[in-house]
């Protein structure tokens, strides 16, 4: 039975694709919360669209999605977070952006709004800002505890955010994150945007996943307008997505080892990353392949000779990477840092619906390419590597195995690359329509939900990074570890600040 049909609901939205959306009242909303709390489905997203709050659910078989909509009365809706903690930060964000209140919410502090915007509730009925009081971090009590405050500006070339550690000697008793520093108001800029402008904004939600964001955005638009990109475009998209995955995995595997003071791996992986970006540039004219995926297809074809460049890259990686894996596996000082460090339990990974290597390193076998799945991956052979240990080492190994899968995927993509058109023309449908799109970025699933007006402009677009559900898990994984292992744990998660803060 379809997920939506297990819930008491009103009418389905007429133009919502490819999965259904329906308005629910108290019975349906509470049933959904019950399913979440019992672990019978996963929270995929929760976002404002005044006067509605939408909740996206993923079936535990990973093959079905349903969107439920609650119409707020007096700007209020029943809290999901009170029974299902993964929703807490999303509810705080909804309040900051829309002014919609979750009744019974366990945490009513602000989240993205740090008090500097000059307005409150910028996406809802905005009101002038009042001077914010100091942010109340959670209290910690106990003998011999001390606090360490880090950020927003960090010591390396990394994104800004604040970490408040409470430590007992060297051991972390609690980490509390304070994010929102790179909130750019992307969802407000998206309102009323043309599809061209919106695609560019979506592609800059998190630069390291620009291909994945453009991919998910294109999925959502194409679903809303009920069109399909041509086969060649679909294969080129997957080629770019796998190159992006390779580049990020190389960079991060090296950086994790560097945080364990093993710079040889860092240098060698850095070379592979650079070679990947150079191959990307010679194929698509941009090292990060920004703005090549567009709604309806792709903006440009692979350059002549591009496929040979990619093949040369694959040959080089196949020569060098196995040796680097050996090096990683056989260096005791490195293993000493990564094994049994920063353990995320499978139960938490499942509860939070952790995507990417964070989930897959802790036994959660979700990969949006496989299930619910999208073209061309349904035509390609690949495995989804999963480990149970949940430590830094498991997350590294999942990424190593994913590199191998991506190499094989690229082989298949190049071999089967169909000819034909690059893009279909998009016509406004003349009526309001909605679409939901997913794409598997290197760090996990990106969700894009949007509503287009009759002229094909964006009325509302929501972008949800995998980091929303991974950041809180980092707080859990670091508990009981020593402060000095934080950079290592943090890098093994590598959550996006920009993708989260939007």
């Amino acid at each position, binding site marked *: 039975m379809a997920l939506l049909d297990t819930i008491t609901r009103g009418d389905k939205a007429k133009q919502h694709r490819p999965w259904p959306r329906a308005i629910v009242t108290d019975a349906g909303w509470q049933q959904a919360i019950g399913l979440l709390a019992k672990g019978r489905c996963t929270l995929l997203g929760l976002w404002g669209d005044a006067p509605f709050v939408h909740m996206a659910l993923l079936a535990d078989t990973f093959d079905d999605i349903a969107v439920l909509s609650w119409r707020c009365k007096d700007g209020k809706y029943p809290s999901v977070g009170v029974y299902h903690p993964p929703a807490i930060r999303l509810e705080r964000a909804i309040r900051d952006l829309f002014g919609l209140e979750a009744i019974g919410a366990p945490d009513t502090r602000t989240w993205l709004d740090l008090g500097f915007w000059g307005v409150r509730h910028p996406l809802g009925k905005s009101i002038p800002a009042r001077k914010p009081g100091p942010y109340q971090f959670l209290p910690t009590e106990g003998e011999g505890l001390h606090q360490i405050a880090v950020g927003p500006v960090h010591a390396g070339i990394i994104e800004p955010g604040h970490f408040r550690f409470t430590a007992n000697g060297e051991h972390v008793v609690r980490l509390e994150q304070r994010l929102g520093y790179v909130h*750019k*108001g992307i969802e407000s800029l998206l309102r009323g945007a043309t599809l061209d402008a919106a695609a560019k904004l979506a592609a*800059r939600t998190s630069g390291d996943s620009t291909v994945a964001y453009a991919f998910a955005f294109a999925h959502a638009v194409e679903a809303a307008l009920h069109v399909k990109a041509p086969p060649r475009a679909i294969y080129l998209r997957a080629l770019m997505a796998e190159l992006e995955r390779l580049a990020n995995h190389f960079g991060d595997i090296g950086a994790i080892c560097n945080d364990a003071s093993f710079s040889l791996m860092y240098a060698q992986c850095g070379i592979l990353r650079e070679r990947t970006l150079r191959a990307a540039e010679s194929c698509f004219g941009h090292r990060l392949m920004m703005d090549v995926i567009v709604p309806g297809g792709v903006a440009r074809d692979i350059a002549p000779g591009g496929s040979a460049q990619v093949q040369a890259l694959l040959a080089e990686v196949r020569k060098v990477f196995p040796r680097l894996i050996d090096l990683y596996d056989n260096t005791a000082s490195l293993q000493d840092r990564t094994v049994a460090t920063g353990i995320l339990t499978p139960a938490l990974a499942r509860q939070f619906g952790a995507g990417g290597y964070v989930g897959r390193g802790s036994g959660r076998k979700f990969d949006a390419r496989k299930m619910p799945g999208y073209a061309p991956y349904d035509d390609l052979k690949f495995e989804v590597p999963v480990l149970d240990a949940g430590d830094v080492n498991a997350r590294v190994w999942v990424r190593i195995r994913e590199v191998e899968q991506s190499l094989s995927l690229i082989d298949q993509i190049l071999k089967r690359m169909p000819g034909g058109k690059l893009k279909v023309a998009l016509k406004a449908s003349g009526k309001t329509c909605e679409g939901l799109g997913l794409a598997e970025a290197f760090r996990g699933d990106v969700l894009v939900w949007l509503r287009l007006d009759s002229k094909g402009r964006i009325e509302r677009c929501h972008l949800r990074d995998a980091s929303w559900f991974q950041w809180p898990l980092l707080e859990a994984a670091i508990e009981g570890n020593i402060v000095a292992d934080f950079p290592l744990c943090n890098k093994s998660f590598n959550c996006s600040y920009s993708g989260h803060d939007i």
Partner: protein
Amino acid sequence: MRKTLFESLVHGPLTEPPPAPDEAGLAELARSVNRVARARLGRSLSIREIDAGSCNGCELEIHALNNAFYDLERFGLRFVASPRHADVLMVTGPVTKNMREALLRTYNATPDPKWVVAVGACAVDGGIFAGSYACVGGVSDVVPVDLHIRGCPPSPTELLKGLLALLEHAS
């Protein structure tokens, strides 16, 4: 490990020849760097990077400056952890309102003489994020900027050109 180490010894260097300094960058810098400062610093600069709201694309390319191909340190340019050790602040992003104060504080914590390099289209005037309730605009709306390196994101070669221009004028 021995094999990998040995091979790196016999393998020729990957490092590329340095690019010519960027002409436009040179001209812009010439106006902002004075002779006294040059004499004082010698041929080396310490850079502190600040993400003031970037999408992180610019950071990826700034990172790449440290890989074997670009090897920034051979020019006497290196990234440091504290603004107190820095001669140059390299700032990315449309300066979100939430980062404005942190940027200002970092600038104030950096000793004189100092230079500010704004990196990326966003850092020029807010770029694609200009006009949002949550963004200030360009870096120069918050702190004085000596050099802009454009691009979305600028490639490591473009970054290197800009930095070499800075070095020629600062040293």
